[in-house]
């Protein structure tokens, strides 16, 4: 049985490592200023590497893998890519992680009020909210003008209604 799965698992791992290495290389080039530093560029480049990995995975498996094995490999590869994308997102935008780092930068001790006001290396919770609102505006989910936030666009209302109903369904009351 292991003879059936092990080579496929190694193929998936090899392609995943390849995708991650290429992504890290692109990020290093972006940081060095050799490539565009727009966030959308980094995201599109990652999607392109992931897409390129699919035919490579199939060619690695070749004829030795049956159709169910190929299907399984495709989904395991997708799972690995999703985990990597989520890890990257958490490392960049993680709220709780940032609190932890702020605390570490303050010598490991602080009170809640200080952490709130100095959140995110000094931008505070207001900076966090502003950034999130700006992102929502960029995605055309709401309108923002000066200090006025709202109203929501039709897409924004749809997203908000869905989020609200699902949170109620799971009884996630005090979250976010």
């Amino acid at each position, binding site marked *: *049985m292991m003879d059936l*799965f092990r080579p496929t698992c190694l193929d998936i791992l090899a392609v995943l490592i390849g995708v991650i290495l290429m*992504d890290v290389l692109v*990020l290093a080039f972006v940081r060095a200023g050799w490539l565009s530093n727009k966030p959308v560029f980094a995201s599109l480049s990652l999607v392109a590497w992931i897409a390129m990995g699919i035919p490579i995975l199939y060619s690695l498996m070749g004829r030795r893998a*049956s159709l*169910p094995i190929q299907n*399984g*490999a495709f*989904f*395991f590869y997708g*799972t690995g890519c*999703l985990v990597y994308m*989520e890890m*990257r997102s958490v*490392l*960049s*935008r*993680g*709220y*709780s*992680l*940032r*609190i*932890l*780092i702020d*605390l*570490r930068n303050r010598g*490991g001790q*602080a*009170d*809640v*009020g200080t*952490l*709130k006001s100095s*959140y995110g290396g000094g931008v505070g919770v*207001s*900076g*966090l*909210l*502003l950034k999130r*609102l700006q*992102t*929502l505006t960029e995605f055309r989910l709401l309108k923002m003008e000066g*200090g*006025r*936030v*709202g*109203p*929501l666009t039709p897409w*924004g209302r749809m*997203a908000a209604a869905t*989020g*609200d109903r699902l*949170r109620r369904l*799971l*009884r*996630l009351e*005090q*979250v*976010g």
Partner: protein
Amino acid sequence: MSPSALLTVLSAGVLFLGLHIVLWRLKPSSAPRVFQFFGLAATCMLVSEIVYYILPGAKPAELFAILGIESFLVILYSLAYGSLARSVSITLLTRLYGEGKLFLEFESLLNEYLSSTRFEERVHAMHEAGLIVMSGDRITLTVKGNRAARAAQTLSHIFSDGVEGY
């Protein structure tokens, strides 16, 4: 893939979703309950593998495919659940949804957010995870918390531009 394999995936999905909703509704909490979430998912996946294996005509190769599809679906669903359980953006959207076609002043939105216990909830979750120690209003990083923060900083310099957190 055989119809029985697809049916197994579908049944496991329905079982997982049903149990997730029932358990979360029975015991509401503001904690994300990551371990319970993945524990439930792993249990449902295991059950589906066993059920498929005892079905007549089961093929070992399809067990691999079932596991692959279910892993993908669980991770996809966990991303959606993570957003629901933790997203500040969804909180802002739902707050504005309550205002209908009106707008809110940023200052009032900020004061509302600051006066809620959302920030403290996160701090409390970190305390429960053993990353910090709370003594009244004072917070102290534990050794485990210090290691986690250092690891996050190192990894974030490789995979992004540092933990911005916003």
